[in-house]
């Protein structure tokens, strides 16, 4: 159950509500929003009694029962679409964003070159891995802090905002210093200590769906971040593991309408990791826009065959530019602007 306090609720009124709820034997969690304060009641088994006790208290606006195990991530809790603003760039509802860049930061020259290209084509965010989660421990693991410095330089040069992955909770303070959006990778979707850690930082989180996670498990992971007090979570579908082996993973396009129904959080699609093959990225990107996604995360490289990682799924600049033109038109159908 969620208790929403009215805009002009006083602090002692809020305290009084919490005290009353606790007297019933339930625990609470307090969320102080910009305008309203919300109290999450945990463990409420006797709804009727709770409603009776709290409804008439001073400062209480309404009580919202939430049937899903995810609460703060649910539509019931927040019926409006969440719009996240990163340094003035809005994501969600009617604002469509494109995050593009190489799989990994390889060198300063290479990254700056790609950054200029994606910026010119209309991307608002630059992606690039400094810490890379590779399937094999013998593969290139990323440039680490050196990579983050290069990303920061690219931001300075182009004005693009930086999205990069944080692999472990020890790295969070370091990546926090450089990135505008922290990415939690698919393999870490259920790394709960990491989720809790990023939930305590004031930075937008891009949470990728685990490759065999159900929608509910995914939203529960978002809940971990939200419940620590960080309201800025963006979801990203990147393909699930199925029996079909033509593509690296099977892009679950239906995740878009499903998330839209159950959650208020923005959802992006990563067609590059989903297919693992650049030849399918364009079609899947267009499909994602048409299905109502809030944005795309696309890998772009100036010379894909020479990319250190994931060259096979990276688009060359020419194809990326073409794609941007096409999706701009399709976005209009779903009422979004790029």
């Amino acid at each position, binding site marked *: 159950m969620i208790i929403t306090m009215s805009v002009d609720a006083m602090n002692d009124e809020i305290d009084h509500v919490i005290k009353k709820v606790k007297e019933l034997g339930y625990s609470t969690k307090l969320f102080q929003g910009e305008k309203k304060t919300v109290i999450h009641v945990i463990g409420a088994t006797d709804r009727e009694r709770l409603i009776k006790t709290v409804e008439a208290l001073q400062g209480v606006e309404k009580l919202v029962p939430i049937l899903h195990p995810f609460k703060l991530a649910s539509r019931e809790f927040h019926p409006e679409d969440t719009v996240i603003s990163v340094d003035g760039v809005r994501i969600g509802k009617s604002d469509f964003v494109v995050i593009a860049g190489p799989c990994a930061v390889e060198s300063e020259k290479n990254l700056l070159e790609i950054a200029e290209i994606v910026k010119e084509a209309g991307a608002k965010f630059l992606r690039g891995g400094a810490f890379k989660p590779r399937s094999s421990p013998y593969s290139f693991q990323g440039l680490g802090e050196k990579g983050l410095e290069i990303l920061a330089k690219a931001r300075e040069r182009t004005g693009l905002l930086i999205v990069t992955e944080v692999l472990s909770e020890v790295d969070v303070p370091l990546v926090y210093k450089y990135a505008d959006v922290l990415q939690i990778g698919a393999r870490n979707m259920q790394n709960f200590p990491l989720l809790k850690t990023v939930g305590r930082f004031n930075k937008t989180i891009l949470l990728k769906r685990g490759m065999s996670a*159900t929608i509910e498990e995914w939203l529960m992971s978002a809940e971990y971040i939200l419940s620590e007090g960080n309201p800025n979570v963006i979801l990203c579908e990147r393909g699930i593991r199925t029996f079909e082996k033509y*593509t690296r993973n099977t892009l679950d*396009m239906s995740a878009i309408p499903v998330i839209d129904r159950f959650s208020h959080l923005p959802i992006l699609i990563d067609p590059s990791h989903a297919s693992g093959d650049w*030849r*399918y990225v364009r*079609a899947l990107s267009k499909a994602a826009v*048409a299905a*109502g996604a809030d944005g795309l995360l696309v890998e772009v490289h100036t010379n894909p065959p020479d990319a250190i990682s994931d060259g096979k799924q990276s688009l060359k600049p020419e*194809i990326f530019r073409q794609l941007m033109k096409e999706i701009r*038109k399709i976005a209009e159908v779903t009422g979004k602007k790029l």
Partner: protein
Amino acid sequence: MLVVMNKNAAKEQVEKVCDVIKEMGLTPHPIPGAQRIAIGITGNTSMVDTHRIEGLPGVLNLIHVTQPYKLTSREMKSEDTVINVRDIIIGGDGMVIIAGPCAVESQKQTMEVAYAMKESGAAILRGGAFKPRTSPYSFQGLGEQGLIILAQARSETGLPIISEALDTDNFDLVESYVDIIQIGARNMQNYSLLRRAGRSTKPVLLKRGISSTIKEFLLAAEYIMSEGNYNVILCERGIRTFSDYTRFTLDISSIPELKRITHLPIIVDPSHASGKRDMVIPLSRAAIAAGADGIMVEVHPNPDAALSDGPQSITIDMFRKLIAELDIIVKTIVKNERVEGENI
């Protein structure tokens, strides 16, 4: 094996090559193209002895087809297959909308939907007369009575009709009424039914099995084509995965995959894929944006009262709005963009 003929090869030369192939105990499949004719060879279990064919007049060259599916592959036929059903074009540059109720329930219901479909821009009317239901106790369809109602709807509205043939027993009956015969997902590997469909002169819409790979899907289409029916339409309708919010997981990536490896048209069925009404519209838009040749969607004037699959049927108003959106999308994308070559 594919025999490519010279641009100006004479009809007699083509016939001669076909005769030689038959003499070798194999089956020739002439494939006309815009530039030149080619002849596919099937029936060989090992390498074809090419010497006898190579030297024949009019033969340009012989190409070995590397895929296990032959007639369905782009290697065999590089141009898109375009199927004409009563002047409705399936494949090529446009988009075709197949719509109607899950099952034919009554004359009144079918006529109502048929007129609404026609007026909102659907090209083909769907409706099940023989229904493959998961439970033997569910409504199994009206049988021939349902086919009669569909035929009546066609004569009143002019819309061609598609309906499913469930087994070889009722195949002839369904074939005699409909314009396109549907083979359902559960029958994708019913080989005797596929062979029978291969001997039909009517186009066949083949649905992808619930847990079949793309390769198995194309091999099923190959069964139909190898019997001489080249008018096969593929239909993606969702695969079984662990994700349980939707009935199936619509495999959107199969569209660009199939476009690359086969010349056959691809239709997407978002209704069965999701099993939920509010997902049909976004998935339909996604399918067309990804380059599908059309969609097959369930529409019911009163979905809540439908005898089968009500939760996945959209209303007539939703359908109208959807068609308008799809029209915009299909105009903005370059369809059939087959990305060849290297990404450099």
